């Protein structure tokens, strides 16, 4: 049977075309692979950068916030405290930045060939997965060195990752669609990522937030993710079910808004990019 394609003007909100994305899954694979290969082409350390980047930052934080400013780390070694957060945070900010820039960076491709545009931001999730994996291995090494054993709530790690991915890809799609039209988004990204980092408990502990504000604070999905990871691997507090629950709900909202906004504006991409 021959497929018939109808091309006509669309308007308003569009559903996410899962079927089209599935049909182009090989493109998603090669785009992700391309992202990884390009990043480490002609570099001496190669994938080693995936470790250095979060590790060096964690060390800087340890010196400045842990030793000099003496921020509390819930009784765990500060380096572990911050590196645990940095691993998730680096993956989050990596996806967000990559997804946001994906449309503008590939605008010649958008102008020359059809494919489901969502593939571009989505490829960031897989492209950054290697970095995340390598950084995680180092985390495991550190945990063994410090003699930490994870709690049974380790089965929640996939859920935490899901929250992380939904949030970053949702926000990334939204910003990518905006960046096609307003290039300012790209210039604001490094600043935005830094603001976001300090709004999440990366260098400090949620304990310093007044208790009555904590439920509101947990609306930031990364609060549940980071504190969840710390609870699992450092056992500094019981697993923060409420924060993770709140975070999951917000992440879904962010994901849906991002994707639908992306789909709504998608038809202008080739004209504006």
């Amino acid at each position, binding site marked *: 049977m021959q497929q018939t*394609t109808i091309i*006509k003007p669309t308007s308003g909100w569009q559903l996410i075309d899962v079927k089209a994305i599935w049909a*182009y899954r090989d493109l998603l694979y090669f785009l992700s*692979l391309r992202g990884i290969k390009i990043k480490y082409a002609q570099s001496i350390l190669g994938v080693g950068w995936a470790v250095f980047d979060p590790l060096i930052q964690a060390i800087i934080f340890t010196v400045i916030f842990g030793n000099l400013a003496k921020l509390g780390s819930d009784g765990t070694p500060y380096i572990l405290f911050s590196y645990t957060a940095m691993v998730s945070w680096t993956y989050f900010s990596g996806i967000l930045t990559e997804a946001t820039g994906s449309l503008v960076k590939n605008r010649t491709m958008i102008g020359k060939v059809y494919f489901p545009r969502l593939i571009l931001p989505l490829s960031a999730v897989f492209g950054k997965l290697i970095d995340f994996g390598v950084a995680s291995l180092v985390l495991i090494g550190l945990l063994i060195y410090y003699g930490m054993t994870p709690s049974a709530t380790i089965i929640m790690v996939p859920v935490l990752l899901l929250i992380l991915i939904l949030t970053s890809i949702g926000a990334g799609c939204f910003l990518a669609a905006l960046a096609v039209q307003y290039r300012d988004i790209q210039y604001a990204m490094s600043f935005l990522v830094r603001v976001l980092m300090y709004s999440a408990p990366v260098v400090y502990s949620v304990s310093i937030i007044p208790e009555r504000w904590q439920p509101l604070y947990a609306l930031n999905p990364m609060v549940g993710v980071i504190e969840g990871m710390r609870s699992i691997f450092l056992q500094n507090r019981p697993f923060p079910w409420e924060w993770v629950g709140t975070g999951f709900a917000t992440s879904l909202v962010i994901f849906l808004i991002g994707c639908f906004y992306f789909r709504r504006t998608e038809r202008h991409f080739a004209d504006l990019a």
Partner: protein
Amino acid sequence: MIEVQNLGKRYRLGTMERSDTLVEAVKSTLLYPIRNFRRIASRKKFSGDETGDSSILWALKDVNFSVAKGEVLGIIGHNGAGKSSLLKVLSRITEPTTGQIALQGRVSSLLEVGTGFHDDLTGRDNVYMNGTILGMTRREVEEKFEEIIAFSGVEAHIDTPVKFYSSGMKVRLAFAVAAHLDPEILIIDEVLAVGDLAFQEKCLGKMDKVAKSGRTVLFVSHNMVAVEGLCSRCLLMENGRIIFNGGVQEAIHRYRAASMNLSERQVLADRTDREGSGGVRFTEMILNEGGEVYPFQPLVIDLTLESSTNFEDLVVAVQVSKGYREVLMTINNRLQGTKLPVVKGVNKIRITLPNLSMMPGHYLLDLWAGSMVDAEDRISAAGQLYVNERDIYGSGLVPMGQYHGSFIPEACSWEAYEKVTGIGTT
């Protein structure tokens, strides 16, 4: 197979405002972000009433046509006639504003060769990347991989990053991928204007095979020889509309008739499809000061070029060709023993050919500038030469390119002498 109804595509052009006074300038600087926001945001907003809004452009309007299975349809027209917009809408890159298209079967569109190519990736990686962007699955690329690299002729370097390839090798590899697509409908933009002559012929041969294999092909080109050779029907576009839909000969004839009315001034500064190191760039070419060109009369070619250094002796060549393969004539100052000094900056060069011996017809001009052997700038099909028909010999008859060849012989002396009968009979 393809059914296009009432297709229209509207664009809003970006416009710039300017301020005339200092106060206005200061005010406009302060309000700059707000105004910019409005301006950029307006690019996708259209109000109901658009009469008199000069920033709105209908790149396509009331386009209707259909293509049957197995037909090879040529689409021709001048720059800005809407050909590219039509292809973009047909290939789902951008949405139409009005109307609809129904397509039956798998569509592949080639508006560019080498989409998604990245310099840091190896040839092999790029083949997979490019193939999947064009809609192939990984398995399909794998199956055709050997054929693809054999066709491209870069087997030996398939695992080298493509940044070490010459531009020709890159193009060959990219075209090889494209040539192995296996769609039911193939949409092709002028991708043949790349690569060396031998490779172009190979590509055309491949295209010919595709066209004859019963696939439906839409082919946009400025190359009339290729259109004539490949297509079974032709659309002629002008200002976003189809002004002719029918026989290839007729369409080409009308297209050429329309070309004659265009000024012969060719602006080359924006051409990006040039080769060479770029030390010299042709920016403009004018034939006969914008007037018409006739056989057996002088042809004056005025070239403007920008040079980044002084050249004591620049070699400039103008090649006259018919279609994509036959070079008919080369005008070259080195061959003629003339030195051409060029200074840094903008230079104007006038070449006067005292007596143009080309048959009436349509030709392409390629430009080349360089020193000794290295090309500084090379533009294929930099301009068109349209030689008008004229009763050259005063015989009441007009020689024509399609019957009488490419060159006009000077009037010969004819003599019928002594009838020789009876030789060898005595």
